[in-house]
C-alpha cells in the first residue's frame, strides 16, 4: 500500500514537470525511480522509455511499465492516473480560461519564456539519456544515423527505431556490444 502512495506521489510530481514534452521530466524521473526509490535500474528505465517510443499514443505510457514492475496491475493504474490526472485537470480548466487570456499582455512573454526553458529541460533529458544509452562508439553511430534520417526525411520514426534494435542485436551477435 505504501508503494502505491509512493508511486502516486512520484508520478503526480513528475507530471507537473512535463513542460515541452515527456523528456523534460526524464532527469527527475531518473533521480526518483532509480536513485531514490530503486524501483528500476538505469538500464531498465532506458529500456522502458525507448519501448514507450514504439508504443502508439502519448509517448510516456512507459510509466505503466514502471508501475507494473513495482506493484503489478494496481501499480500500473496508479502510475497512469497519477501521471495524467493533475496536468489533465490543469489543462481542462486553463483551457476554458485561455480564450479569455487571449489579449493578456503577459501571455506571449510566458509562452516564449517557458518555451526556451522547456527546450533546455528536453536537452538535459537527452544528455542524461545519452550517458546511459551511448555506452560505446557504435551506439553513437546508431543515434547519429537515426537523427539524420528523421531530420532530413519524412520517414515514420518507428522504422529507424526498430532498425536500431535489430542493429543492437547484430552487435550482440558479433560480440561487439
Amino acid at each position, binding site marked *: 500500500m505504501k508503494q502505491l502512495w509512493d508511486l502516486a506521489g512520484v508520478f503526480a510530481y513528475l507530471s507537473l514537470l512535463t513542460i515541452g514534452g515527456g*523528456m523534460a521530466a526524464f532527469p527527475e524521473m531518473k533521480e526518483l525511480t532509480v536513485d531514490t526509490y530503486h524501483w528500476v535500474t538505469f*538500464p531498465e528505465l532506458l529500456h522502458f522509455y*525507448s519501448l514507450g517510443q514504439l508504443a*502508439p499514443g*502519448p509517448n510516456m505510457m512507459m510509466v505503466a511499465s514502471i508501475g507494473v514492475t513495482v506493484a503489478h496491475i494496481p501499480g500500473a493504474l496508479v502510475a497512469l492516473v497519477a501521471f495524467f490526472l493533475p496536468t489533465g485537470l490543469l*489543462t481542462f480548466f486553463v483551457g476554458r480560461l485561455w480564450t479569455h487570456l487571449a489579449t493578456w499582455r503577459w501571455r506571449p512573454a510566458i509562452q516564449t519564456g517557458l518555451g*526556451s526553458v522547456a527546450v533546455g529541460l528536453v536537452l538535459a533529458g537527452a544528455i542524461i539519456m545519452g550517458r546511459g544509452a551511448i555506452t560505446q562508439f557504435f551506439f553513437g553511430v546508431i543515434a547519429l544515423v537515426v537523427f539524420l534520417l528523421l531530420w532530413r526525411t519524412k520517414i515514420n520514426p518507428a522504422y529507424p527505431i526498430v532498425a536500431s534494435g535489430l542493429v543492437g542485436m547484430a552487435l550482440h551477435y558479433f560480440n561487439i556490444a
Partner: protein
Amino acid sequence: MSDAATPPPPPSLGKLFWVFLVMGATSLGGGVVAYLRTGLVVRQRWLDDVSFVELLSISQTLPGLNATNMSILVGDRLRGGMGALVATLGMCIPGASLMTAAGLLYGAGGDGPWSKAFLHGIAAGAVGLILVVLVQLGAKTLKTYADYVFVAATAVAVAFFKVPVPYALIVAGIVAIWWHRPRNKDVP
C-alpha cells in the same frame, strides 16, 4: 475549403471515444500531433486549422503531454467534460495496455541477453529521436540569442550540476519570462 456556414453537428460520446481510440492505437512513432490533425481536421472535420493550432499552442505551453492535452481540449470543446474524459481514455488505453504488458513480460524473464541487446539498440535510436524533437522544438521556440542562453543554462544546471528540475524551472522560467516581459512601447 470547408463550408463555415454548416459546421458538422458535435459527435456522440461513443463516436468521440472511438475516433480517439483509433488514433491512440495507430499513432505509431511518436508524431501524435500529425495523426491528430489528420483525424480531427481533415477526416472528421470537427475542427478547422485555426482552432487546431490555437488548442495546440495551449497544449504546448501547459505541462502535460501534447497528445493528452489535445484530447482534453478537443473533447471539452466538442462535448464538454465527459467529452474530455472519453477522448483522453480513448487516446491512452491502447498504449497504456501495451506498456503494462511490456512491463509484465520484462519482469517475467523477457530481459534475456537478446532482448537486452534489442532494447539497448532502440535506446540509442531513441536518443537520435529526442535530438530531432529538440531541433524542431528549438527552431520553433528560440528567436533571440538570449533564448539560447536560457536553454544552455537550464540544460547545464540540470544535467551537469544536478540542480533539481523544479528549481531550474522556476528560476530560469522567471528570468526568461521577465526578459520577454511586455514593454510599454508594445502597447499601441
